[in-house]
């Protein structure tokens, strides 16, 4: 697929929970990965990169036996809206400040009426994300069931006009004509969340300080 088509796919994708489905439908099997998908960023995501993703709602966090882990809900955006991230070592402090501002502007209030805040962040390795596989048994007529396996996620440099180092992670919901089930997608999301470690912060400046 040529670069122009990929930019068109991403620019025409709706900003709704249907965004991932639309991108998978128009660029199946992560075919726009490695391509330019945004007019605001000329560098596709490369291997070895690290992505930053903020944690806002504490429902994503489980505290038990003195440890903290993330629920699979944290990365469930990848199945619908795309899991929004910033590119570490590329995004500036100003980009991260704008990211934090947008997140907090869009977030609803807590149940006690106070504003939500960014409670932590996760550093996601592109190599680790790309090593994840989505798998599903496939039965064709009278043949024995076979395993269909593909990259679980596509990672795209979805730069924005004011934040050129923005990126998105999307589930790969279809490969070679096989549509992956919701449970197969959920497993990939759960595995990715399990691999992610939360870094808790006490001040928004800790998040902004991740910028260059």
């Amino acid at each position, binding site marked *: 697929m040529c670069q122009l088509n990929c930019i068109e796919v991403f620019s025409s994708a709706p900003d709704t929970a249907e965004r991932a489905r639309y991108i998978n439908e128009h660029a199946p099997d992560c075919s726009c990965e490695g391509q330019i998908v945004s007019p605001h960023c000329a560098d596709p995501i490369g291997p070895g990169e690290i992505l930053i993703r903020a944690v806002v709602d504490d429902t994503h966090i489980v505290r038990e036996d003195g440890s903290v882990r993330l*629920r699979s809900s944290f990365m469930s955006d990848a199945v619908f809206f795309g899991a929004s991230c910033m590119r570490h070592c590329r995004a500036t402090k100003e980009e991260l400040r704008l990211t934090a501002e947008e997140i907090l502007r869009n977030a609803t209030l807590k149940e006690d009426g106070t504003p939500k805040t960014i409670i932590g962040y996760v550093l996601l390795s592109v190599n680790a994300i790309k090593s994840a596989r989505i798998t599903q048994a496939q039965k064709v007529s009278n043949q024995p069931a076979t395993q269909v396996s593909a990259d679980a996620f596509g990672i795209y440099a979805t730069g924005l006009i004011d934040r050129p180092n923005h990126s998105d992670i999307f589930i790969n919901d279809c490969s070679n004509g096989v549509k992956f089930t919701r449970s197969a997608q959920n497993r990939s999301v759960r595995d990715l969340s399990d691999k992610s470690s939360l870094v808790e912060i006490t001040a928004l400046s800790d998040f902004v300080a991740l910028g260059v």
Partner: protein
Amino acid sequence: MNFALATSPENIFTGNEIAVSSERQHFVIEIPAKEQIVRVRSSPYKSYRPRCALQKSYRSRILTVESSSTKKYDNVLAELTRLSAYPAGWNGYPSSAAIGSSFDLAKRFVELLRASSNAFQISASIRAVGTAMVDIQGPNFLASIEFLPNGEIATNIDNPDGPQDFDLENFDGTKIPDDLVSFFS
């Protein structure tokens, strides 16, 4: 009051390895000072350790024992109720409002589990699209179940036989689907 020998990870043990729990009640046990009382907590399936390695000593002579069989189900039902009120945008990132029918099905499933067994640890969460998810840890499995508003449930189970993923249709909250009964009974 009748006590039963119990084997779930939430039970209370004395130094003599006698476990006691009561059904659906909160109660207080006074322990003689010379005896040690320990409490066993659950751990994630993937890092499951022998029971003895999980024991933790308590110094207090008087413990308020939370009856796990009732409280844990009440807690997860309350959490589902809390999450079901989440409005759009709850996540900061784009996120849909909680879908009431999804949370209703999740609550019915938890009620079915309550009637089935007390041996599970359960927690609830909300996904970006507003659906309810319930995580269930049993003696030898870990299950995650997402409840879609159309009655479909997307299930991931890890057990000693390996991972199993399947989507089941037409869950209406009246009974645990046949494909899951063997795990949850």
